[in-house]
């Protein structure tokens, strides 16, 4: 199957330590005020378009082909169009993580569509303006988002909506799905609420009710919309691609092994050869890369396998380090994500009479990331 062959290429990239995906946090500026935003802006000069295009060429030379422009809100960067255009001119794949508000402007939507992005991930926080706008902190952001989705649908731009499940939207998940279907967009529900990049845990006050989440997963399995099965953590060779298949650069040029592990490898403006650094050639061995790669390899055995729900837990060692100072520490959100899905899994298989949903027969298949 095509998906398996692509997975084989990604396994190869992993083995070769090829940073196939470059995530560029173009700016921490944003036109919304989301209460759970994980960004931690600093008083430093952000990279301009020339800096980003140089960074792009260094990533490309290191093996990147897939570029994600994110932020903050990437489209508020003064040079967003030039940077996005440079990605495409170099024959690289463009993905954008945006709040979509600026794409309510039909000219911007058309200009964006002309770039032929591969995917556009847009955050949707509710099926109603009252909920969405409450979380974004900006009245009118929901209405603008719907206008943007209409433009993008007409222009044939593939949109993936992403909804972090919170206590504010947990009872309107089917309505969110219906809204996505109206625009021909897919929707992924994210059950993880994370601390900010500087360790602030206040976003946790928005965490959803575990009973509601478990019922949600059971219903999706019963409708055949997803499968639920534990990852084989006792056989997994690694937890994630940190320091191998992904590289992240923040608005100030600091290079990180991924979006979550905030241990800088140096500043991209001062790194002449990112490939040499990544591969540890020419005397450029990085202790940070060695460390995070070891962590990624050890997490399944050390953190996940000892836990009954470990095969279902969404665990990020970068988040563990931010929250608890230890990349192997099993933080509460990871435990909660695992327990909710384990509970739903048992309910679906009829193994737990106290769990939500009726007992049904379902095939067991590998789980794929978020809901």
């Amino acid at each position, binding site marked *: 199957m*095509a998906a398996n*062959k*692509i997975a*084989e*290429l990604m396994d*190869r*990239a992993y083995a070769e330590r090829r940073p*196939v995906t470059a995530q560029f946090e173009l700016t921490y500026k944003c036109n919304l005020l989301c209460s759970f935003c994980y960004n931690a802006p600093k008083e430093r000069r952000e990279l301009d378009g020339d800096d980003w295009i140089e960074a792009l060429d260094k990533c490309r030379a290191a093996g990147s*082909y897939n570029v994600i422009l994110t932020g903050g809100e990437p489209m508020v960067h003064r040079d967003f169009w030039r940077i996005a255009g440079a990605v*495409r001119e170099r*024959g*690289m*794949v*463009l993905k954008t993580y945006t709040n979509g508000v600026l794409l309510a402007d039909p000219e911007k939507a058309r200009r964006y569509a002309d770039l*032929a*992005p*591969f*995917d556009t991930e847009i955050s949707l926080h509710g099926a109603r303006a009252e909920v969405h706008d409450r979380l974004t902190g900006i009245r009118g952001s929901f209405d603008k988002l719907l206008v943007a989705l209409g433009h993008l649908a007409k222009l*044939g731009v*593939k949109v993936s909506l992403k909804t972090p499940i919170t206590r504010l939207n947990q009872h309107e998940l089917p309505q969110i799905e219906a809204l996505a279907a109206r625009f021909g967009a897919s929707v992924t529900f994210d059950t993880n609420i994370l601390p900010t990049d500087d360790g602030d845990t206040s976003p946790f006050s928005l965490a959803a009710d575990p009973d509601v989440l478990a019922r949600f997963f059971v219903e999706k399995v019963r409708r055949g919309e997803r499968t639920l099965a534990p990852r084989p953590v006792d056989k997994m060779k690694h937890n994630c691609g940190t320091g191998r298949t992904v590289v992240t650069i923040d608005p100030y040029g600091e290079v990180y092994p991924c979006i979550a592990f905030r241990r800088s490898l140096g500043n991209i403006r001062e790194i002449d050869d990112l490939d040499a650094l990544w591969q540890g050639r020419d005397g450029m061995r990085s202790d940070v890369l060695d460390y995070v790669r070891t962590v990624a390899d050890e997490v399944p055995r050390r953190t996940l396998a000892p836990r009954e729900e470990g095969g279902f837990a969404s665990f990020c060692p970068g988040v563990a380090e931010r929250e608890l100072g230890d990349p192997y520490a099993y933080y509460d959100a990871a435990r909660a994500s695992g327990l909710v899905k384990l509970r739903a899994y048992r309910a679906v298989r009829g193994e737990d009479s106290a769990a939500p949903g009726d007992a049904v027969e379902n095939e067991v298949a590998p789980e794929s990331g978020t809901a």
Partner: protein
Amino acid sequence: MTPPEVGPVDQALVYRRHPEITLTRFGEEGLLVVPRAALQAVLNGTATRVLELVDGARTVGEIADALAAEYDGPSRDELLRDVAEILVDLRGRGAVEPVGADAD
């Protein structure tokens, strides 16, 4: 996969790559991405090389000649057939399009 239908091979045909696609090498293989179709596909070594040789100027015959110079084994006629089949398949995926007045 069912091989695409290929009639008599027109060696003079020229193809160009669709400007929006990306092709990324992974050793011998290539990952083709066609954004507007939201398509990702892994191409084998020969298909990857054919797509790399498509430049809007080379004819099908010239692409077969280039492969014949690079590969030991298959005859030029076999390679020509392979090239034609590959190009029909790539066209079906939206990766290439024929150029010129005689193109169908």
